[in-house]
């Protein structure tokens, strides 16, 4: 209750910015991820915070929300009043609200019940009818009156869910000075994302400022009033949107001038030899009609930002998720959503979620390694454990798994060593096609080099490799061809010398049209677009 009163007091402080941060730094052990950041977010504006992966956007958000404490020397004001950073209670009391990418909704509860989750109203009696009316009003206020408070969240469309999360974030306080939207649209198709822009405008009309975290340039150019760009933990630009265009923004984010000659170098996507893996019209949640051909010995890199569909490809190919379109290995068609069928056809996948999708948690290194094909050791009605141990011994040695004892439980190994075992599980069966999904994420630097060596070797041995990664350096180093995805489609294919980490990053960021000039009319009238 006290918090609400405080919020109203703040509402009258019109002349102050909604939030002012100064001298914010954050150091983890040896790595400084945020350096002396000053940020001013004005009342009622949509302020975009941009930057590549690892530039410090999320750290900034986590400091605002109180999840991280900044290094000493940081100061902050909310509505002109001093504000203590690094405490989630203080952030909540001051009226800072956050909607994260995963939205934090309970899928099988109704919209109205979701509003009650985590509400700080104590144990007073619930009045369902009154609650529903209030929730309906909150949704109508941001233009989503079509969402019924009694509908279950799981039955809503993706943008409707986001709208529910936004309305809920604003619900318990009469004036919220700042709403932080942390990549709320990154997993939405672009057209759906635009339906939220109207909701965002309605929020700012009430005087609430929005800090909009995104790496989609076209969205930002359309909706934002001002843009702050972070690079390597430092603020490298804070400009009104009118002063920016697409190229300027990309340059700020990447920290270098674009080499047009380099990125325009586009070669038709011809594989080297006969395609072993043929994918046509692949369709998933975001992925929309992707064709791929990979030949023996080729490493095809799949690049894209979060939400571009690149993170979905491996799941669709492996049968982890249901898909549309046709996938065939050596002309043999693979049924969708059947991991066993993919493996039998020689298409093996190392998934990104190691603990959830790859590791047999209670199993030993030996059991995890041989799971891919146990019949190798099944001879005449007898399981030859000795042969298995010998086989595992040689693989542990070749993969340089540490500790070397194959009877260790998998959970006793470090992430890098677990990953070697998971990769080794498929290497030992000599797959026709090897799909790798972020193979070196969360892996120490030594294991990363080892794994890169294995990817090169397995390709040299004639396996067709599909490497889905957000690590552009890794892609540039290993790929013989890279497809860059945007909005569920292959936006560009890079071949040969054109494959550089810079070129991939640039293509990931390009707007839909690919012509920076075409974006300008939108910049001039951001209102019109919504």
């Amino acid at each position: 209750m006290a918090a609400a009163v405080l919020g109203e007091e703040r509402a009258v402080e019109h002349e102050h910015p909604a939030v002012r941060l100064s001298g914010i730094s954050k150091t983890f052990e040896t790595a400084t991820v945020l350096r002396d950041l000053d940020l001013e977010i004005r009342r009622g504006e949509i302020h975009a915070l941009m930057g590549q992966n690892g530039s410090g956007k999320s750290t900034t958000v986590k400091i605002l929300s109180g999840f991280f404490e900044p290094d000493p020397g940081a100061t902050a004001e909310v509505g002109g009043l001093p504000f203590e950073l690094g405490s989630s209670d203080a952030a909540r009391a001051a009226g800072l609200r956050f909607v994260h990418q995963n939205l934090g909704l309970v899928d099988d509860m109704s919209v109205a019940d979701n509003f009650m989750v985590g509400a700080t109203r104590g144990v007073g009696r619930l009045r369902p009818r009154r609650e529903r009316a209030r929730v309906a009003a909150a949704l109508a206020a941001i233009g989503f009156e079509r969402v019924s408070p009694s509908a279950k969240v799981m039955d809503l469309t993706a943008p409707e869910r986001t709208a529910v999360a936004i309305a809920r974030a604003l619900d318990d306080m009469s004036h919220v000075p700042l709403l932080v939207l942390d990549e709320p649209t990154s997993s939405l198709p672009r057209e759906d994302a635009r339906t939220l822009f109207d909701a965002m405008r309605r929020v700012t009309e009430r005087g609430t400022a929005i800090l909009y975290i995104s790496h989609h340039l076209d969205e930002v150019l359309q909706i934002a009033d001002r843009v702050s760009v972070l690079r390597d933990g430092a603020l490298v630009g804070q400009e009104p949107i009118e002063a920016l265009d697409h190229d300027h923004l990309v340059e700020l984010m990447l920290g270098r001038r674009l080499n047009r000659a380099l990125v325009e170098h586009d070669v038709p996507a011809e594989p080297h030899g006969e395609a072993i893996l043929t994918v046509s019209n692949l369709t998933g949640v975001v992925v929309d009609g992707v064709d791929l051909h990979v030949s023996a010995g080729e490493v095809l890199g799949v690049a894209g930002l979060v939400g571009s569909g690149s993170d979905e490809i491996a799941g669709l190919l492996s049968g982890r998720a249901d898909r549309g379109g046709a996938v065939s290995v050596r002309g043999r068609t693979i049924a969708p959503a059947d991991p066993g069928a993919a493996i039998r056809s020689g298409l093996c996948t190392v998934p990104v979620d190691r603990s959830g999708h790859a590791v047999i948690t209670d199993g030993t290194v030996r059991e995890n390694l041989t799971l891919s094909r146990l019949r190798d050791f099944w001879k005449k009605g007898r399981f030859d454990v000795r042969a298995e141990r010998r086989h595992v011994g040689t693989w542990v040695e070749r993969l340089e798994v540490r500790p070397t004892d194959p009877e260790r439980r998998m959970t006793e190994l470090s992430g890098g060593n677990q990953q070697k075992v998971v990769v080794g599980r498929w290497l030992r069966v000599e797959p026709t096609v090897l799909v790798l999904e972020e193979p070196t994420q969360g892996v120490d630097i030594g294991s990363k080099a080892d794994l890169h060596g294995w990817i090169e070797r397995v390709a040299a041995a004639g396996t067709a490799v599909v490497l889905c990664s957000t690590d552009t350096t890794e892609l540039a180093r290993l790929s013989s061809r890279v497809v860059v995805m945007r909005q569920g489609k292959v936006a560009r294919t890079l071949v040969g010398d054109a494959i550089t980490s810079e070129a991939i990053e640039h293509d990931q960021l390009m707007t839909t049209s690919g012509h920076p000039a075409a974006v300008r009319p939108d910049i001039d009238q951001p209102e019109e677009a919504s």
Partner: protein
Amino acid sequence: MSHNPGNPSRVLTRLRPPSLERASALYLFAFVIVLFGLWVPDTFLTSVTFRLVAADQVVIAILAIAILVPLVVGAFDLSVGAMLAFSLVVLTWLEANTELNAAVSSLVAIGACGVVGFLSGLLVVRFKVNSFIATLGMSQILAASSLWISENRQISGVFSERFLSFGRRDIAGVPIVFAYLVVLALVVWYVLQATPLGRNMFATGSNPEAARLSGVKTDGLVWGSLVVSALIAGLGGVVYGMKIGTYSNSFGPPLLFPAFAAVFFGATQFTRRPNVWGTLVAVYVLAFGVKGLQLAFTNGVYWITPMFNGVALLAAVTLASRTGIVRLRRAQRRRSDPPAAPDGAEPAGDPPGRQGESADSSPAPDGVLR
């Protein structure tokens, strides 16, 4: 740690007795034998006592193996107690009302259980009903069927002497029903421990999604394990019929919890997974403990059985999870490391010391501390 096979410390490792955490049941077994051997030597240390306990526990042990099979793939089967009674009631009804040969009747009874197990599997695999709930519901339906078929009456005197002799005689001085149990245990042990099928079953129980993505037919394993569980429980009913010869409506479901307790107790032994020999040792150590107490206190300590079972189960699980808990905390801490790093950290490899920590955190090499 040296891997030289001639290293004397490695040889010593093999000679070390099993650790208390891994084999608490064996130590308890030894303790029970010594304690009651000294306390009531005249009655406890006799072949009569041993034969009696061995034979009496066979049905519970069979039931425990029936629970064990689906538990390995991560499914609960709560219907096995009622299944036992169902099998027996079908068998006695057939014997009482038809001219069928007893062997055929037995197969029909076991087959009927298999059909019920198939239906449970259908619910669990196709309709995605939680196995705990599906088999709980199925056990109620089975109990109702048993009451209906038996008309809620005791059925006795329907078996031929020849049929009963298959449950009451000895072979080589051992009760024949115990031999049945040993054969069943050997078969199940072989499949679980020494075949690719068993390995895939353990993988499914540990991480079903990872197993499925590695090409294991997890649905089929869950379904099949429920059918096998039902068949084994059906066999238990037939064995009980051979041994006791009578159906009464109090038979079956009350055995469920002791059998479950034995499986969980057994899962703490030897391999730290549900396993056949651990289960059997658990069944018999509890039985001998109870028997000893009954012989030592001759005047009516009716509460001793559940008390002893309960204390032993809790003690064994606590001992086993002590190291398990430490390991779990370490695993959690390690897992929470990467997400705690900000997206900005983009760690150039793991934080320093991570490699070292993983070597530290693993329990000391076997043979040093254990």
